[in-house]
């Protein structure tokens, strides 16, 4: 007890935490306002807004899983090189050579779990009618987050560069080749010609744009790697910031009027 007290009274501790230990009502309010991580929350909240039976905590769990994915993802990046020569072998080594070899498992199962919890979160928001005014736009942001979550998972699926990976991505991205007008097997692409020259070929259509090549190859690996590790996470982070901000500005967790 005395040691704890000494630590909490030290200059270092006090310089880090801008508030005393939240033991009484006043300090419990102060802590929410003066701590960077806590200030995302309101100070007080309707009891029903934190009832597990109401929110299922699914938005929170999804966010936590996003953080887990970020941390394990960064650790994976230390080991993984996105080239045809190394990708598969690096993944093998992660299992066989690296100590504590469950990094990949944590990242993969975390990703699956995040897809599931995002759906459950959407399900709960729908079932409580929480997309109704004034929260319409936050629902729209949510839908974009849902799409980005799926894309994160999809781009990550390719990186181990095994049979499972390239064929799942091949099947998935083959759809792009059938995009109306813009895919070279899509309806109406025949109409896009200039002076008898086809504009939409397998080297210029939507699928080519997605893969960076005519089939899933090294260019695709590079493209998906950058999307997976940088572009999409940044977009998700930005949208999450807006999402949380809107939850607060729209009056906190929804409830009956």
């Amino acid at each position: 007890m005395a040691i704890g007290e000494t630590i909490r009274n030290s200059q270092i501790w006090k310089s880090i935490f801008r508030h005393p230990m939240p033991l009484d009502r006043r300090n419990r309010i102060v802590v929410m306002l003066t701590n960077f991580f806590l200030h995302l929350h309101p100070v007080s909240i309707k009891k029903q807004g934190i009832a597990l039976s109401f929110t299922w905590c699914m938005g929170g769990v999804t966010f936590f899983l996003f953080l887990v994915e970020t941390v394990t993802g960064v650790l994976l990046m230390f080991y993984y090189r996105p080239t045809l020569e190394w990708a598969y072998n690096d993944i093998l080594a992660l299992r066989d050579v690296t100590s504590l070899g469950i990094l990949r498992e944590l990242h993969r199962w975390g990703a699956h779990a995040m897809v599931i919890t995002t759906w459950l979160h959407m399900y709960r928001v729908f079932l409580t009618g929480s997309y109704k005014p004034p929260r319409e736009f936050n629902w729209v942001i949510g839908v974009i987050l849902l799409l980005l979550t799926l894309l994160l998972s999809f781009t990550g699926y390719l990186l181990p560069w095994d049979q499972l990976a390239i064929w799942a991505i091949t099947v998935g991205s083959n759809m792009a080749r059938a995009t109306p007008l813009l895919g070279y097997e899509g309806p109406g692409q025949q109409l896009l010609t200039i002076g008898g020259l086809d504009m939409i070929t397998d080297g210029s259509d939507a699928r080519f744009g997605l893969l960076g090549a005519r089939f899933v190859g090294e260019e695709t690996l590079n493209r998906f790697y950058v999307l997976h590790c940088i572009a999409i996470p940044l977009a998700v982070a930005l949208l999450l910031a807006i999402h949380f901000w809107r939850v607060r500005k729209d009056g906190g967790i929804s409830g009956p009027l």
Partner: protein
Amino acid sequence: MHSNELFLKDVAGFLGGYYAAIAIMNGIAALILWQRKHQPVWAVIWTTFACVMMVLGSLALSGSEATVPSLPESVRNLVNTLSGPVNYTVGTTVLLVGFFVYRKFFVQPMVAWSLFNVALLLMGLSMADQNFALIVMKADNVPIVGLVFLLAFFTWVATKQAVVNDERMLRGEPPIEKVNDEKVLVWPDLVYTELICMIAVTAFLLAWAILLPAPLEEPASSVKTPNPSKAPWYFLGLQEMLVYFDPWYAGVVLPSLVIFGLMALPYIDFNKKGNGYYTIAERKFAYLTFQFGFLELWITLIILGTFLRGPNWNFFGPFEYWSPYKVEVLNNVDLPQMFWIGLFDRPLPLAAADSPWYVQIGTILLREAPGLILVGAYLVLLPPLMAVTIFRRYYAKMGLIRYMVMANLMLLMLSLPLKMILRWTVNLKYIVSIPEISLNF
């Protein structure tokens, strides 16, 4: 048979633990019922059930064919012969509708708990079947098993509260959420809940990662195509739609519509009630439409695409071996063929290759007239027709644009089940088929 014995030895440990876990769960439930809820009868029932599970668990641990609890061969064969895309879809629909109609009955805790136990038991018995286990225990498929149970659980949680609220509001009382609207401090109430959630999720994820290795197959080879080639599981509903539609519709248009439809939802749903609490009665139309799209068209198709579609995307029963040699006869016909050849006994209209372009186009239009007229009527005539009949009240409240967006989204969503039914009943392949511009619908 020999391989089956090896298989049973392999799963014995898992099954033993599985039944033990069910037993422990029911033991805890019995304890709670006995001490806190004062329902001794149910406590006795679940204690007995737990004992039975312990016995099953020890039998499973033996790992021998004679004793591992499993479904009888005849039952498995019956399930295999009975299952097919039609029965599967009709069956799941009947099930979901039944749950919805009799929701008051099914949300009772003891009914739900019984159903949960039955599901777990069936799962355990099925797991002793090699073909079943091979697919369900595939590492990447495990999350979907989890998804099914989680969805069932949360649907129960939500429906239970909706039923309570609907009854309260019928009596003129406010929903239960309203009663609970006293304010509490976020520290400690919310912050601690979050902390516990984080620890629980971390523990769960660690256990999952230690128990189940991530899959890694042979190195990628662009010449060896696996059969079946499947997209990641969350897209398998879309891949299943490819059975009924061409990729441009199933793979591009429909998913875009799902995203667009979801975004449009808050602007279409003009019902002010049901904001911030669980209810079904106050928003039946929105509820049913969403559940139809989510549970029926998205989730059940993912389950179908993952567990029941094997090599060549053929349908396989849950206990059937995924043989790559299974042949399914496809004799699907296009609507123009049905119309011109079947109905009028005439060849399809065909323009001579050297005729001018307007004759060519005219002939195509004539050939496809039945389909084009049908699709046109469906998308152009039905919305106004519905506006003056079944959706009269809605149209009046929503205004033109809002109503048109809703009506068209509904019709496009329904295009999937309609096409399924047409395929099953009259073997219809395409309603409109203009290969000249790769347009098949």
